């Protein structure tokens, strides 16, 4: 199995480190041809406006949309959720739109309000230490979308729509690999 990571910008090495510790092979995806050699794709944390621009420039944007629609498993963290969501409340930027959710960019505010919270995740016995950095807030989700975890205010922070995982926090910044494992297991 080979897991791709969108390879332009952001927490690429951090996701690689987690997957390598699970003995999973990784591949940095920058072109549409790269999509053909992977079994699943991670959209890392970073700046969604940059990733959009880079994907379009390299001809990856439409190809990725097509791949997701034909069931490529996706693990989107933070900026990745913004890239995929149907609608972004407070920005005019485009999005791939395959995830039936409405999000608000930097929903908690600027870096001053970034935080770490122990969260309960459905199916996990122990809490998960979730790192939120200028994170988006999921305002609403469609009926196909399951909410598997919420922050203390009740906002969805881990959503799942079939083969698409959406996390508004950064599991790649902690040593806890349970969410990466969960993603890998769904691919087998």
């Amino acid at each position, binding site marked *: 199995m080979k897991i791709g990571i969108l390879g332009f910008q952001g927490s690429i090495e951090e996701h690689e480190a987690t997957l390598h510790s699970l003995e999973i092979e990784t591949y940095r995806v920058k072109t549409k041809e790269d999509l053909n050699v992977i079994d699943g794709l991670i959209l890392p944390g*970073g700046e969604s406006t*940059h990733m959009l*621009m880079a994907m379009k420039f390299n001809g990856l944007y439409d190809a990725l949309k097509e791949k997701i629609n034909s069931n490529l498993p996706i693990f989107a963290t933070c900026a990745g959720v913004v890239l995929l969501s149907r609608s972004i409340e407070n920005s005019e930027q485009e999005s791939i739109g395959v995830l039936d959710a409405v999000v608000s960019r930097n929903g908690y505010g*600027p*870096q001053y309000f970034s*935080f*770490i919270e122990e969260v309960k995740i459905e199916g996990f016995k122990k809490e998960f230490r979730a790192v939120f*950095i200028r994170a988006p807030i999921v305002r609403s989700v469609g009926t196909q979308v399951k909410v598997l975890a919420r922050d203390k205010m009740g906002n969805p922070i881990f959503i799942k729509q079939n083969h698409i995982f959406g996390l508004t926090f950064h599991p790649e*910044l902690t040593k806890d690999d349970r969410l990466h494992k969960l993603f890998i297991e769904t691919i087998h």
Partner: protein
Amino acid sequence: MDNNRVVTNRGLAQMLKGGVIMDVTTAEQALVAQKAGAIAVMALERVPADIRKAGGVARMCDPLKVKEIQKAVTIPVMAKCRIGHITEARVLEALHVDYIDESEVLTPADEENHIDKLQFKIPFVCGCRNIGEALRRISEGASMIRTKGEAGTGNVVEAVRHMRKVQAQIRWIASMQDDELFTAAKELQVPISLLHEVKKQKRLPVVNFAAGGIATPSDAALMMHLGADGVFVGSGIFKSDNPTVMANAIVKAVANWDKPEVISSISMGLGDAMKGLDIHLIDKKDRLSERGN
């Protein structure tokens, strides 16, 4: 800064890797930068080339301007304060900028001490010329490091010198026996705990960007080639012939730094880059990188 803040503050810099941070002096410029794909903007009163020209004391940007820039963009907004100017930093924190650059580009307020950055909630980035400066800034609480380069010159030579120096020193430390680290700590004037971290990770404990004199897409890609995690561009964009095109070309060059054919195609017909300065013609006392060791 508690442990959680260390993770979120260093973490924000990790999210910026592979991107370009652009100096802007107005909300309009900030929007140009964001549209071009900048991953953050740096708010300041004048770009370094103009600071050099104007002379006098260069200070923190007008808070009103910071507010306008914050309102204009969704990407992180950084701002510079003078080295050692605790109050300017507190003002920027009160404005909720996303990162403070305690910068040698502004006139130092304290020629002996840097700010105790551990006392702040929001993160700092600081410049360095070598690993000693880098680790001293990290021990003071910096969550991100950049090379100093020589800002406002459009000449990449100093950024190259500083990046090569830091990378060479990382390799040197990684090759040491543990008992040799004590002497290295003494010589470099840094805490030994940070040297252990560098030895183990074979890199700085925080993200390290290139800055100072980067003027073209090729300059930016060169810095990535030399091991930079990302690039700051100061005067290089808004002092070029066509800032919109230059900004976008530099972003694309950094994202594709290992693809010369891409850099070649985006470099065609860009117009003039900013006019550069020969470092050897700048008096030692006028070199910004000499400030803040």
